């Protein structure tokens, strides 16, 4: 009975007793969730357009942020460094398209996944070789990002909002909007949706797959850069992020591999869920449950809805 009480009753009493603390926990989870969503967004972009499950998205985040920080260290002004980093991500996209994707057309999706695991190793190795393996601080101030925090007195307590967290949320929102406009309003966006629907049909109406792939990888690269900046500003730029980025895979399971709204909702659910679980239930299990909560939640979810939150039901054919 005690155990049932501490699972089903006590946490909710805690929540009710200190609503300001609850709000703080939810906010922290929300911001973490925004970053998961951003990583997942990169995955979804690439998966939609090329059917490639890009395992390297996490390392691309680290890589992009490292390029930016290192360029600035070498004396480049912050905004020039950002532009050069964008160019680097563009070159990476072209390189990946030319030397990896183009050669693996029509391969089984597991093969493509493993190729991106290979890409992960290459990026990780070269990132460490060129920039060194130690964590670096993000150039938050130089980029004009806000620092500091605001207090909000509510429920008889105080909730603290870090300004950078608010900025991250706003930037993420703007980026999602920009992508939505890009997809629905531009010629390339239309071509991209056509490719996502049917490769061969798209080819037959004169859309270049190579071009589209390079563009989505470039877009995913920019998403990675933004994610890297925000993540770096919240903590630091380090390869440890690579493991955390794997949680975006769990996000994808919740949201579905092809749904941008799914990636966002999934990210927020996991971000908030794992914070709440860690804070209110973690003590029951011994702390550190954040390490697996996302995956186990995804696993349980899969058993009931294999197609994700926003996916369509799959009808198998023979």
């Amino acid at each position, binding site marked *: 009975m005690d155990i049932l009480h501490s699972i089903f009753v006590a946490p909710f009493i805690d929540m009710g007793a200190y609503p300001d603390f609850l709000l703080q926990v939810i906010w922290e989870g929300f911001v973490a969730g925004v970053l998961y969503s951003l990583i997942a967004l990169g995955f979804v972009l690439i998966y939609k357009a090329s059917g490639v*499950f890009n395992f390297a998205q996490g390392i691309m985040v680290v890589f992009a942020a490292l390029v930016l920080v290192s360029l600035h260290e070498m004396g480049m002004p912050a905004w020039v460094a950002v532009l050069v980093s964008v160019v680097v991500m563009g070159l990476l996209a072209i390189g990946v398209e030319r*030397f*990896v994707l183009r*050669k*693996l057309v029509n*391969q089984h*999706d*597991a*093969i493509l*996944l*493993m*190729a991106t*695991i*290979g*890409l*992960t*190793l*290459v*990026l*990780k*190795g*070269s990132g*460490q*070789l060129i920039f060194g*393996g130690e964590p670096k601080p993000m150039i938050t101030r130089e980029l004009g990002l806000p620092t500091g925090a605001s207090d909000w007195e509510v429920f008889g307590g105080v909730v603290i909002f870090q300004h950078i967290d608010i900025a991250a949320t706003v930037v993420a929102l703007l980026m999602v909007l920009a992508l939505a406009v890009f997809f629905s309003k531009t010629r390339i966006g239309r071509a991209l949706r056509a490719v996502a629907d049917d490769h061969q049909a798209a080819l037959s109406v004169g859309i270049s797959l190579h071009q589209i792939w390079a563009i989505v990888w470039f877009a995913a690269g920019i998403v990675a850069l933004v994610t890297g900046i925000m993540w770096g500003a919240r903590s630091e730029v380090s390869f440890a992020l690579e*493991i955390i980025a*794997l949680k975006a*895979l*769990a996000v*994808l*399971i919740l949201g579905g*591999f092809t749904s941008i709204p799914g990636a966002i909702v999934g990210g927020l659910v996991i971000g908030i869920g794992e914070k709440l679980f860690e804070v209110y239930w973690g003590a029951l*299990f*011994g702390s*550190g*449950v954040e*390490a*697996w909560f996302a*995956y*186990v939640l*995804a*696993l349980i979810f*899969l*058993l009931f809805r*294999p197609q994700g939150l926003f996916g369509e039901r799959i009808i*198998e054919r*023979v």
Partner: protein
Amino acid sequence: MLYREAGQFKTSYAADQALLPILQDRIGLSLILLVAFVGIPLLATDFFIGSVMIPFLVFSLAAIGLNILTGYAGQLSLGTGAFMGVGAYACYKLTTYFPDINIILLILFSGVFSAAAGVLFGLPSLRIKGLYLAITTLAAQFFLEWCFIRIAWLYNYNDSGAIEVPTRKLLDIAITGASATPVVRYLVIISVVTLMALVAANVLRGRIGRSWMMIRDMDIAAELMGIRPLRAKLSAFAFSSYYCGVAGALMVFMWIGSAEVESFDINHSFLVLFMVIIGGMGSLLGCFLGAAFIWVLPIIIRAVPQLIGLDLLAATTEHLTNIIIGVLIIFFLIVEPHGLARLWQLGKEKLRTWPFPYASN
């Protein structure tokens, strides 16, 4: 000229279905086994045995485990490291409770526990396929890792959080622990690995192995031919995880001597996956080739610059190794998805027809 089966006529199906139907292959394997069981223990240095051969064999066994699941049954797993961990911790607990039972038996039995864990985490495979399943194996990886840290009972409440391998003897010769010599440990490992590789070969060529390959190649057709998907997939998970578990137990008890959770982290899962990809999915030989390649490559990268007078930092070699392995994985997936094993096979084909390259069969 030398490698040719001309004149070797099979007169029975039994002969045609033998593991190695060609005489030259049988001779070759016998030579390799002779070198492995007699030559290396007699001639090789402790460094070579302890730092090259033993890790190579342990990883080969883990690669066989993963290859059964991924290469033969088509279920991609990213949780190999954790399943190895289950075997290691199970073995540690078993030898704590039953110090008098022969440690080799315990190592072989500890695989049963990881088989059970494999079945548990393989259950979703009935409803989930492909990439989704890979993510559920990540759940296994991180959840089990967490268990290895949080459940202090697993490491007997040591302050260090690590398991220390006690000395266990067979016929008064120490085979585990600090006093066991590399040669003795090597002989135990090579015996276990040889035996288990043979078992894997037998299972894979029979009814059960075929049912896994059917599920891998075309699950719907397999089901319409009477294969129960759940049974086939779970048996693959169990069999595969058993191998990984024994490999994990061997790794701790026969190679590194102590272990904490880092020994079973996701990087190890990836390492074994790379061995399978580069060695060749769906090939037992490939497991050995891949393990040898991935384990020996860093040693070579460390050694070569020293030979030509360059002095590289240890970290630099690690990064270079990462890049090279990454490039090779992409290269193999593009050029030869069946890895080194297929290259070897192609080489043999060339040998058969040499010096007439256009003669077929």
